[in-house]
């Protein structure tokens, strides 16, 4: 069974731009998938559809076998608790420490204090920032900030991790570190989908590549490279 499945999905925005045309994608549990293509090809739209930030225009999206398109609005938070998401701009809260930023993700879903005290240091150790728990985001490098945001996305151990251009603001060395981290998370069994247009990263990882162009899948290749 596919962890993520798009069946004939189309997305037309309110301003009539067609972002996706009749997309069919299946991603298995534990897979690592790159979504590549130029800006405006529909990569980010796929991520936004998955976390129900925007609704589909037609077609259906299944996550773990459940159609999430007709999900009631009140069930959306539940969906998001099962999907970790990482963005190019980190989305960290500047007035909270590293520990608080990660703990925040558990607090808002109602986890008790002892779980927070246990899980936050664990996940910070996984991303290699256990010594910076009390720092504020502005005291960290961009690479470290992205690690914190990955820690926040993963602290709840979601089965799916989505990353939208996670290395977009990082230099090659930091990007490599982030990719190692995502690989580790994938190795534990997490399904990872990452949108990127970083050619070097895609080529060095040799994972499945889904290439989009003007809202259509033009290539779906196992152990692929960036450009054909």
């Amino acid at each position, binding site marked *: 069974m596919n962890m993520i499945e798009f069946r004939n999905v189309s997305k037309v925005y309110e301003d009539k731009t067609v972002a996706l045309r009749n997309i069919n994608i299946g991603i298995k549990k534990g897979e690592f998938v790159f979504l590549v293509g130029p800006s405006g090809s529909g990569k980010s739209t796929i991520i936004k559809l998955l976390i129900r930030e925007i609704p589909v225009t037609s077609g259906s999206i299944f996550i773990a076998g459940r159609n999430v398109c007709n999900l009631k609005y009140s069930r959306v938070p539940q969906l998001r608790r099962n999907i970790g998401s990482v963005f190019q701009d980190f*989305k*960290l809260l500047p007035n909270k420490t590293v520990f608080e930023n990660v703990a*925040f*993700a558990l607090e*808002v*879903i109602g986890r008790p204090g002892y779980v927070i005290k246990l899980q936050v240091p664990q996940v910070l150790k996984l991303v290699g920032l256990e010594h910076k728990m009390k720092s504020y985001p502005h005291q960290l490098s961009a690479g470290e900030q992205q690690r914190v945001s990955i820690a*926040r*996305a993963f602290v709840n151990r979601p089965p799916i991790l989505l990353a939208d251009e996670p290395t977009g603001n990082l230099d090659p060395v930091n990007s490599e570190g982030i990719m190692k981290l995502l690989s580790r998370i994938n190795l534990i069994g997490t399904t990872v989908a990452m949108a990127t247009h970083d050619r070097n990263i895609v080529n060095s990882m040799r994972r499945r590549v889904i290439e989009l162009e003007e809202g259509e899948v033009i290539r779906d290749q196992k152990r692929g490279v960036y450009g054909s």
Partner: protein
Amino acid sequence: MIFRPKYFFGETFSGLRRNFLMFFTAISTVAITLFMVGFFLIIVYDVQAILASVKSQVEVAVYLKDNATQEFKDYLEQEIKSWEEVSEVVFVSKEQALEKFKRDNEGSEILKEIQGNPLPASFEIKLQSPEKVEQIALRFLTKDGTYIDGVDEVIYGQNYVQKLFSITAIAGSIAFLIIIMLLLAAIVLIYNTIRLSIHARRKEIEVMKLVGATNWFVRIPFLFEGFFEGVAGSSISVIMLFFMSNYLLIRGEKAIIDTLRVKELAILGSSNVILYIYAGIIVLGGLIGLLSSSFALKRYIRV
């Protein structure tokens, strides 16, 4: 959703600490705008009370000729009493009028000048509805514009009574309009301030929604905050109003009483109404804060 007071209060107050400037702005906006509303409300209430007590003192004095017979007096008293606009009729005899005059002018030179009793007997008529004073007065006139036999003169403050009534009517509706406008201005200002403070924290809301917080979970700390700002601000305005009314208005009123020589004037401090105004302002503050937060959140919560 599990209700977790520790989290919500913690978030509310750490929110307050971190966004002190926004918090301070919101509270002072509430305090200043509601102070204006309350200030005007008290002034208007006060002026209305003064006018009402002046109005209630409007009466018709019917002076009788000295040659009026006892039958005529009895007949007139019965007649006046039968009018439904009249609440009270008092007959003041010539002797009583003189006594009262002596009391009012005790120690004055004028008393020595008086010989005999030049004062007329009279009926003092108090009215149910002071606005009808002119109609009542007209009943003592005959068709050709002279007073009926036995009546010497009818006095009801012809010159100022009509003015007084039209001024109270106009002042009442203008005051009502101004209060409504001030209130609207207060609501708009408070709403915008709270909306700005929520806008400043839109990133926080975005992150909360992203990691799967329910809408209520996002909303509650903001609602607490809005409510708290409303109540705190309006409490400050009530404290200012209290000092203002106790130290300025009441003094001013005493001065008015002394200069106008009106008796039984409604004194502000002695009234319960002002306590209702205070309580109303605090309730209003809390309500505006709560509703402003609630409406302002709508834009940011749908992510």
